[in-house]
């Protein structure tokens, strides 16, 4: 196994602090379980920590409960047991310190791009001119300058997700929760998004919790990966890829350290398929 990938089968809290990184977790998930009405047990006693200022990925097979966990952290659905702490406070519902990026974008088709982006601020009662100014900044930030007055149906899938991202950034939350944000866009756009996401993590000082089912994507963008097992879900491993970033993306994707981590995760996930 690659030495640069710290891997443990029973990970959780006894993991040594990341070298040179903030040890303080911004989000703590404590033995969360979730049973849906109808008796489907999606999560059973998951415990996880999400370090501040980093991008942590929840990776696992489809239907294993990634969305469920993310929505519990967001406060959108209640857990059956356990608790979630954000910044030391227990989560009882959605909060201003968390923002969500939806897999299906969740844009309002009747509202222009700028109104969609400013929606979180509109709900908070921020004055019209002020929220438009903030929204404009974030629209430019995600590369949609000039599209402020367009409507979602006039945009491509990739552009729509940029709007969703700008909306989450506009409320200036500490934690950004992203549910498979790139799964509905084509591969080229997806790679471009991944670069931009890395840039955001490096510059914004926010913490990101990212959900994906793509191993390559997880290894490429994550500081830390929580590997979830099949339903009912538990954490089967924590992986810290520690990819050397900042170079040529193509080179990274051919780098042996990167490929080894991908391979190691694949070996872990493989026996879920049998």
């Amino acid at each position, binding site marked *: 196994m690659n030495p640069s990938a710290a891997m443990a089968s029973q990970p959780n809290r006894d993991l040594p602090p990341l070298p040179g990184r903030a040890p303080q977790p911004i989000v703590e998930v404590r033995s969360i379980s979730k049973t849906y009405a109808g008796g489907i047990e999606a999560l059973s006693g998951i415990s996880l920590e999400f370090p501040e200022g980093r991008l942590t990925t929840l990776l696992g097979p489809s239907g294993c409960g990634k969305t469920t966990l993310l*929505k519990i952290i*967001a*406060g*959108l659905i209640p857990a059956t047991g356990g608790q979630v702490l954000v910044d030391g406070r227990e989560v009882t*519902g*959605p*909060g*201003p310190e*968390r*923002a*969500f990026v*939806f897999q*299906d974008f*969740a844009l*309002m*088709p*009747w*509202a*222009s791009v700028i109104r969609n982006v400013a*929606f*979180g601020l*509109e*709900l*908070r009662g921020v004055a019209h001119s002020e929220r438009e100014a903030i929204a404009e900044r974030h629209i430019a930030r995600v590369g949609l300058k000039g599209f402020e007055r367009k*409507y*979602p*149906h006039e945009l491509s899938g990739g552009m729509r997700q940029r709007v969703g991202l700008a909306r989450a950034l506009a*409320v200036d939350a500490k934690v950004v929760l992203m549910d498979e944000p790139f799964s509905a866009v084509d591969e080229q756009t997806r790679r471009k998004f991944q670069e931009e996401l890395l840039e955001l993590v490096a510059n914004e000082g926010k913490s990101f919790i990212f959900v994906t089912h793509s191993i390559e994507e997880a290894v490429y963008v994550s500081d830390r990966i929580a590997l979830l097992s099949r339903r009912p879900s538990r954490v089967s491993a924590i992986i810290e890829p520690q990819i050397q970033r900042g170079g040529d993306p193509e080179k990274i994707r051919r780098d042996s350290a990167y490929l080894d981590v991908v391979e190691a995760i694949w070996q872990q996930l493989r026996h879920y398929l049998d």
Partner: protein
Amino acid sequence: MQISELAPALPALREAPARRWRDLLIHPLVLRLLSFAAVLALWEYAGRIPLSPAFPTFLETLGGLGAIMADGTLFKAFLITLHPLVIGLTASILCGIALGVLMGLHEPSEWLFAPIFVIAQAAPLAALIPILTFAYGIGLTAKVMTVCIMAMPVIVLNTLGAVRNTPKSLLEMGSSFLATRSQSIRLIILPAASPMIFAGLRLGCAAAFIGVILAELLITPTGIGDVISYNQSVADYPKMYAAILSIIVFSVLFIELLERIEVTLFRPEARP
């Protein structure tokens, strides 16, 4: 309801001029005009055979239309017909949307009221007209009530369905950005429901026209109903057909107008 795509998989023609002719011929507008011309020509022809002594030609009908327009009958009749229609329709729209939204947001009221409207939607409510006449006499009230019972069920049920079908992810998006209940109703549920509510309004309008004419034919002959039944009784068929044609054209244009208003005011995403 326009078709936007071009004809799929029509065999390509080699000669350019022939192709240009065909393109022109299958142009939506040309075809629409062609279609109207064909039907009117057929009407004219059938009237000239004659199909029946009670079937005037199209031109005779136009003549009848000219006559009832010239002496002001048609205009006066329309004013009278519109009176119960507008009152009944306004009441149905206001009450219907309010009730539909209430039922969509509040489950106990849905439980209580929805079955009535589900049955009313399927049932031939026109049969209530004689009872309405008993209850309210032969005046304006009975006609207004007729319009209401015809128009309201579809408006209520469409509004209810629209509110119920708000996309879940939009609701979750709202609550993740801390929308209050009233914010999520005002800013998410109602806008998301409005296309389907408007569809209900269009159906409600069509039903209201059916109702008002029925009321005028059944309760007491007034307005357009009077023009129709009077000319029928004196066998002045061109005028009778002209009155029918005019109310049909009027109602279709009215519903079309409603759609235009909807798109320009409420549906930026549907504007071309």
